[in-house]
């Protein structure tokens, strides 16, 4: 029981860091894309290596499910991608959470 206050502080700190870092990361893509105005229309043509075993992502763990059906659904939250570099394999988890749009 004596560790509870410390745990609470740590949890709050983690959440705060997540929020702050998330705000910084969300701002990045808008800077990168500022020079281009999005164009509407067109069909994105993609290629994929397998059929889905089923269409239910809760029951599957393959790209062959999620790549195909993710655009059809919403989630409560999403994780925000961070651009990673070839030379780096360090990738922090904290700060990748933000409410969806």
């Amino acid at each position, binding site marked *: 029981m004596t560790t*509870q206050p410390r*745990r*609470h502080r740590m*949890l709050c700190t*983690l*959440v705060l860091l*997540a929020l702050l870092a998330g705000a910084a990361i969300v701002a990045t893509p808008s800077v990168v*894309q500022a020079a*281009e105005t*999005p*164009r*509407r*229309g*067109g*069909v*994105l*043509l*993609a*290629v*994929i*290596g*397998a*059929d*889905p*075993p*089923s*269409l*239910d*992502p*809760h*029951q*599957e*763990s393959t*790209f*062959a499910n*999620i*790549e*195909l*059906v*993710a*655009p*059809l*659904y*919403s*989630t*409560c*939250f999403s*994780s925000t*991608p*961070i*651009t*990673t570099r070839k030379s780096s*394999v360090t*990738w922090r*988890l904290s700060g*990748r*959470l933000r*409410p*969806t*749009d």
Partner: protein
Amino acid sequence: MATEWKIASDGLTYTFKIRQGIRFHDGSALTAADIKATYDKIIFPPQGVRSVRKNAYTAVERVDAPDPSTVMFKLKFPSASLLDNLASPWNVIYPKKYLDKDPNYFKTNVVGSGPFRFKNYSRGSTFEGERNPDYFVKDRPYLDGYKFFISPETSVRAAAIRSGRAYIEFRNLPSAEVEAIRKQLGDKIVVQETPMTGEWGIAVNNVAKPFNDVRVRKALTLGIDRYSMSKVLYPLTGLKFVGGLMRPGSDWAMPQAELEKLPRFGKDMEKNRAEARRLLAEAGYPNGLKVVLKNRNVKLPYQDFAVFLIQEWRKIGVEVEHRPLETAAWFSDGQDTGNFELIVAPAVEFMDEPDQFLGRYATGSTQNWGRFSDPRIDDLFSRQARTLDPIERKRLIGEMEKVVLDNAYFMPGLWWSRNLVHWAKVKNYVAPPNHYTNQKLQDVWLSED
């Protein structure tokens, strides 16, 4: 769709406010009741319903929806990872009314609320979605639709990119193909290379002969030269990094120096192979043995990975019959039923998050392909999940890794890297270090057709 959240000071209640006015594709309103029904299915699946990632939510005692715009998660203990795990791209929200009738309804049907509506699926050929004009995010999506062409052959997918029949391959292409495409198409192509939160390994059937004998399991994992494998397979497949059960370079990974002290990660392969042969002889196989390796019929990286393994195991007297299966059969006649001796088994998750990666080694997990049960692992998994101090948590994770690896319950192969190739006219797609996140396509647009 969550607009804000609050965590109680004791860390045991998470309260989320849900955006109002969202409609499913059948026209019905999405409310907190749908989110509760969805998460009940994920965390407390009814009999006969698989939930692949439920071990990531062991902290959750119950989910409540006190009103249409509020969802509450009540926890049994404070969790270091709950927010990360709630951000799972796999946790798509379903309408409650369909789940009430049949919790397996969405294995063959789609009723979402996403930026695109289901249009058509032709098995072995194409999968299509079309723009949802009622999507709750204003002015999205930009695209009229998306269409996937399906082919298990890497060369066919690469050719589709080269010819412009397809604009993007989200998962991966081997660097040799990428270089050929880049040479041909120059600045019409963009390549995004990232690390990958995924590892290819081998699941071992721990409950049947010959792999219920730890000596046989140890022999096979000792017989794999992972350092040579990386050199050979990287240009062909992107398989690259030698590591344990958490991604090398991530915060939770076992340090490389520590990893190399484990016998099967040592670099002296003559010594490793001699020990492997000794263990096989001691287990009653002085002249080696014959085994069947099941696999998925997807070439990248499954087939090349298996070819390398087969060559390696031949050096210790193990003859392998390679049996590739179509994706659905690889699950139904492999993972789901335990009907295998050895099977190629990836461990890919959407974040470097211990609950996600390590839940598969706990007793009874649907992702515990090898069907092993070790109370030390169950205890360490449970303890790390409730440890908020990251240093102590990492120590527990390291202990757990050693139990899994020392007993060769699962054989790690290599961690992947990702080459995402797309035409430059595909805009606003940033590749994360896996192909599970950022797949909604709501912000993606085409600068030309």
